């Protein structure tokens, strides 16, 4: 192999920084290295939303092309999260398109139903919050949670894992996961109400 993170006759695991450097050098191996290291991670994010391997594969491929378009100028410090964010965004867009066509599936409807618990009643709110302020509030909210509760919350509402998957992943009962999510949703609702936010 000429360019790229290979040694003769032996494949080595490539650091994120090296992969990002490949993008900056416009080396096409950037995409194959990204796929090798993070293809499955991105696929699982897409699959939790779309429940279709074919659609998930397309979203993952689109993720890599988006990464190609945005680096440079971007140089993400957390490469996995950077890719995952793109995959999640693309997958949710595709899910919206499908749900409009009545082809919705996956965990999204369940997750949306649960998140409805967090929405304050309209009479208690003082301002319609903009996207930036909402994200900032969510960051503050996540910071208040214990590490375990935060991980469970993120696995459910960011990665859209099923309750069962979360329970299995953290070796705990499903009821414990549900209870943790219930408490966290209540806390989020209280914070939104306290700060008088409408969505």
């Amino acid at each position, binding site marked *: 192999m000429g360019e790229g993170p290979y040694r003769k006759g032996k494949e080595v695991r490539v650091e994120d920084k090296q992969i990002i450097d490949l993008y900056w050098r416009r080396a096409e191996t950037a995409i194959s290295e990204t796929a090798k290291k993070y293809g499955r*991670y991105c696929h699982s994010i897409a699959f939790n939303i779309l429940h279709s391997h074919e659609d998930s594969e397309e979203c993952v491929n689109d993720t890599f092309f988006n990464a190609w378009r945005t680096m440079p100028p971007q140089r993400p410090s957390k490469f996995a999260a*950077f890719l995952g964010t793109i995959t999640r965004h693309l997958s949710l867009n595709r899910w919206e398109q499908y749900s409009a066509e009545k082809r919705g599936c996956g965990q999204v409807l369940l997750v949306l139903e649960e998140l409805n618990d967090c929405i304050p009643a309209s009479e208690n709110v003082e301002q319609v919050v903009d996207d930036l302020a909402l994200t900032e509030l969510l*960051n503050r909210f*996540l910071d208040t949670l214990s590490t375990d509760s935060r991980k469970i919350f*993120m696995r459910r509402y*960011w990665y859209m894992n099923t309750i069962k998957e979360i329970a299995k992943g953290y070796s705990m009962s499903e009821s414990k996961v549900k209870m943790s999510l219930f408490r966290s949703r209540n806390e989020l609702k209280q914070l939104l109400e306290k700060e008088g936010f409408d969505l």
Partner: protein
Amino acid sequence: MKEKRLLKAMGKVDEKYIEEASPAQHAKRPGWLKRGAIAACLCVALLAGVLFKIPGPDVTIAPGFLVVTAYAASSDEEITMQEGIELPTDYKWSLAMSSRPGLPLKLSTTEYDDLSFEVSVDGGTLLFWEGNKITYLDSSFNTGNDTIVYWTNLSRTGESDFERYMGTTAYINIVIYEGDNIVGYAVVEIYTNDLENEPAQTYSAKLLKSVSFPKANREYQKITAEYVATEMEQIKNETQAGQRW
């Protein structure tokens, strides 16, 4: 919808929280553990058949005791699957061509008395076939010794609605329990090389890995489901990386 807005806003939270909860992060093993695993493999090469120990979380592993038996498509012949070796051609299964409702695999072992298998599948569906009655199984289920499960590339989406699984690869994950203790696991890969030949594509299988956790000082090792899930993901990741690129 307000909740949809909340869901989208979640997508923009600080990357440190995304990374912290990442299943990949969860599965990540420290570098020293990986080096330990390599060292352990070298020990195996030198001391074939002798148990080896991965330093770190005090997990002693040994070759698996699970026997996975496959059956020929058009005869009574059977074969015990060997790790890393794919099935012979006449053991391949095809929905359109085979008289069986799925690719049959028998899970058995004689090592423990009170054994159960927790079986899950990534892609396709597993089913039981008894007395010409087909029972489709949940994506994760428990079963006992000497069970024959059938893998099919169909997924049931309704009472009589089916969807074809269009991936080229699927995996069967088997975690072996003695009572509440995990005593081993195995990963079987199912794959097709002629997906475009629908509906007559043929599927073969390969036992990717079979591992057991022997008792240490007559005590069960404290193996968590999380540890096993991580190991199995790692095996699949490595296989996929090898196949794709």
